């Protein structure tokens, strides 16, 4: 059964205890964002997600979107849920107060996003895409366009899309063909076809604002000749209300494996009126400026699904009785023991839990740094945060979404056959999670971004933004004998720190190996990329787990009623160090083997 209560205690742990939210109030623009305000926001968002979005998750999947004569209808319940979402002000959470937003930090809004993704991934995409379009307009459009469009996109009465992909070009946008012809009134006529446009057409909002990549007549070929245009479904009239229908039409919707309640559209632009956003030929850059935040959001989709799968799997593991514990009967009053007693079921549940909580901690760190990029006073702090988020963006996107799918599958496994049939909703998580590994840059592209761009950028300076804090932490914690004191009721922090130290050494050696191999042979980094990204991600999660364990150990002696939370944190930390982090050794060996075994086979042998 799809069951979900927002993991508020763990979110509070991540925001307040691990990443020190109290510091937020010292930052420009966040003066009022106190820990208790954050808590009330999370609590209210949780209520909404649990009681409005969760109930229409399975039904939305069953029903899907429907297309008829250019009109797309979302499943039953989506329109009222969206109206309630908008009226409650959630569309404005991370938007600029100048346009009606609440201007809350990423570290808060990403937790709210996680709740939306856990309860209804399809639903979350509608406001998610609007926010992406909002950000591009905010950063690059003229003041006039901003005034006209942003307030309505922030309050959610209008939604947004990002129209990049065409049937012949996805990853390689340099191939795109959509044309933009300048008009005497300073507008443009946009003509072309786009595919895979999320929320391209639907019945949730009065108007839909498309951000479209297209070529001007004088555009140079390739990615340097792409411009960004704003194309509304209805052109606003003099009073700013939706007016004349523009030449943009949804010609079909895709039939997909998952996220069926999200409308994925083929869009046709036929002399549609558009306005230039940013400078001519610099559209790609304009569209990608918010990429770090967007890709973290996609990562959060993986995290959200992993959390939902965990909770549903735990529910079943406690409820389903089958067989007896290998160490002797645990529930003599019942015909069998709950399957939670079995080590293999524990393995699955602990794996999902350790990854979900680890990703939440790591995502929280990246979100905190995204806030620093914009809000820190000190330019050196801003630069460090920019480096860090650029480095970690491909990692959180690919790692979290790979994990999300794997954990959804593991959650289904706990249910056995009852997970494979539709009734319990577990297979929906598997299907819904799968897309996140593909869109917003496939995970393969993310891995290439990490090894080919980020490692070498600024002479390796980006890398130091992760390596230095880890090294400093290890230096402070690994050799301190007092850290081995396990009398506090948990595992030894020194032991965990040493395990992290080994994995970190492996990461450093492997990084040096890839860099050297890449200089000899340009194919080597590509052969290592996916495994390297996973290795890096595991070390980052390991770092979060040791830090979490340290916080838990400090707080445990005075925790009273909260003791179980910290004890569980310590158990899960130990599980991660013992059973998940060791994968780093296998990954390092894989990478060291080089490209030979996959590149030497001749093409015709495939």
């Amino acid at each position, binding site marked *: 059964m799809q069951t979900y*209560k927002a993991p*508020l*205690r763990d979110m509070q742990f991540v925001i307040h205890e691990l990443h020190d939210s109290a510091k937020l109030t010292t930052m420009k623009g966040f003066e*009022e964002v*106190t820990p*208790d*305000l954050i*808590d*009330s*926001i999370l*609590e*209210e968002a949780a*209520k*909404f997600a649990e009681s*409005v979005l969760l109930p229409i998750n399975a039904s939305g999947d069953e029903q899907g979107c429907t297309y008829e004569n250019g009109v797309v209808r979302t499943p039953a319940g989506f329109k009222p849920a969206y109206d*309630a979402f908008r*009226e*409650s*002000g*959630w569309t*404005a*959470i991370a938007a600029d107060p100048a346009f009606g937003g*609440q201007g809350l930090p990423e570290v808060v809004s990403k937790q709210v996003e996680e709740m939306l993704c856990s309860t209804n991934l399809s639903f979350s995409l509608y406001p998610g895409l609007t926010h992406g379009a909002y950000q591009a307009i905010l950063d690059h459009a003229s003041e006039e366009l901003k005034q006209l469009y942003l307030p309505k996109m922030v309050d959610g009465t209008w939604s947004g899309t990002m129209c990049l992909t065409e049937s012949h070009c996805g990853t390689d946008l340099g191939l795109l063909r959509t044309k933009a012809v300048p008009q005497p009134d300073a507008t443009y006529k946009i003509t072309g076809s786009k595919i895979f446009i999320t929320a391209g057409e639907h019945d949730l909002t009065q108007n839909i604002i498309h951000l479209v990549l297209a070529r001007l007549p004088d555009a140079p070929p390739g990615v340097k000749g792409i411009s960004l245009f704003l194309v509304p479904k209805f052109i606003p009239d003099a009073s700013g209300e939706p007016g004349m229908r523009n030449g943009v039409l949804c010609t079909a919707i895709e039939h997909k494996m998952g996220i069926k309640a999200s409308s994925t559209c083929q869009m046709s632009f036929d002399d549609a009126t558009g306005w230039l956003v940013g400078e001519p030929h610099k559209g790609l850059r304009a569209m990608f400026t918010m990429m770090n935040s967007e890709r973290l959001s996609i990562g959060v989709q993986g995290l959200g699904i992993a959390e939902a799968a965990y909770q549903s799997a735990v529910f079943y593991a406690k409820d389903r009785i089958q067989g007896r514990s290998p160490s002797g009967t645990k529930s003599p*009053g019942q015909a069998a023991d709950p399957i939670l007693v079995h080590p293999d079921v524990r393995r699955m549940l602990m794996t999902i839990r350790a990854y979900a909580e680890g990703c939440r901690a790591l995502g929280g760190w990246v979100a905190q740094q995204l806030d620093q990029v914009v809000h820190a006073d000190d330019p050196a702090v801003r630069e460090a945060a920019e480096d860090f988020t650029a480095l970690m963006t491909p990692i959180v996107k690919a790692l979290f979404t790979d994990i999300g799918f794997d954990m959804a599958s593991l959650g289904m496994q706990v249910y056995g056959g009852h997970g494979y049939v539709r009734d319990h909703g577990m297979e929906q998580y598997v299907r819904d999670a799968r897309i996140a590994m593909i869109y917003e840059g496939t995970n393969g592209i993310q891995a290439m971004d990490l090894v080919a761009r980020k490692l070498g950028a600024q002479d390796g300076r980006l890398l130091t933004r992760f390596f230095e804090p880890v090294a400093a932490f290890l230096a402070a914690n690994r050799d301190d004998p007092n850290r081995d004191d396990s009398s506090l009721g948990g595992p030894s922090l020194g032991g965990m720190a040493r395990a992290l130290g080994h994995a970190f050494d492996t990461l450093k050696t492997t990084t040096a190996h890839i860099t050297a191999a890449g200089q000899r042979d340009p194919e080597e980094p590509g052969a290592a990329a996916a495994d390297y990204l996973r290795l890096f991600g595991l070390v980052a999660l390991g770092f979060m787990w040791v830090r979490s364990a340290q916080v838990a150990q400090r707080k445990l002696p005075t*925790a*009273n*009623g*909260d*003791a*179980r*939370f910290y004890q569980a944190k310590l158990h899960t930390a130990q599980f991660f160090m013992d059973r998940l982090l060791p994968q780093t050794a296998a990954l390092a060996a894989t990478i060291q083997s080089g490209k030979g075994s996959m590149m030497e086979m001749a093409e015709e042998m495939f």
Partner: protein
Amino acid sequence: MKILVPVKRVVDYNVKVRVKADGTGVETSGVKMSMNPFDEISIEEAVRLKEKGVATEVIAVSMGVAACAETIRTALAMGADRGILVESAVELQPLAVAKLMKALVDKEQPQLVILGKQAIDDDMNATGQMLAALLGWPQGTFASKIEISGDGISVTREIDGGLETLALTLPAIVTSDLRLNEPRYASLPNIMKARKKPIETMKPEDLGVDPTPRLTLVSVAEPPKRQAGKKVGSVAELVSKLRTEAKVI
């Protein structure tokens, strides 16, 4: 017209309550706390009356530890105008709460007090009735519908046999039942605004009330575990067991 609404901080209705090892009560530290659901309904009703232009001000009152301020913030986020926190380290029983509420009513002069019919932690169902008695005001308890006209209020109450409608003269006490309304979700802007609304803090002494408990708690224990059932082979065996073992027929 002013409306006063007391809101109680209780263990969240989703939490599986655990009895403390020493039997002195239930475990509340580190447990998620939230507003008593009946009080949410009361706040919602008061805010709706304000939105209709019937009420001019909604005041949320909470009593107990300092953290009760968070419960008041929730009420403010739902639309209450200001809060009063009566801070007390002593456990507050219904009579003490009713006395403190009476002192606040004397001070604030509301025309209507809407209380939850009971709190989900102790299920006392007493404070509203006690407050009505202390004030000498009419009371409409277990309300599923209220309507204000002029200086009167009609209260539809849920009783064993169905519904009963009372006509009361204001000022009056109403206690809300589940079906009175469905509380709203606090909107994000209102959560932010709630931070700026005032909460006045006072002590029972300031109101001239001695809150010392009058009831003594003897012990708190889990209900006995349900025993496994027995399968019977025939109706005759069932009847005989009901007669000889269960002794119910």
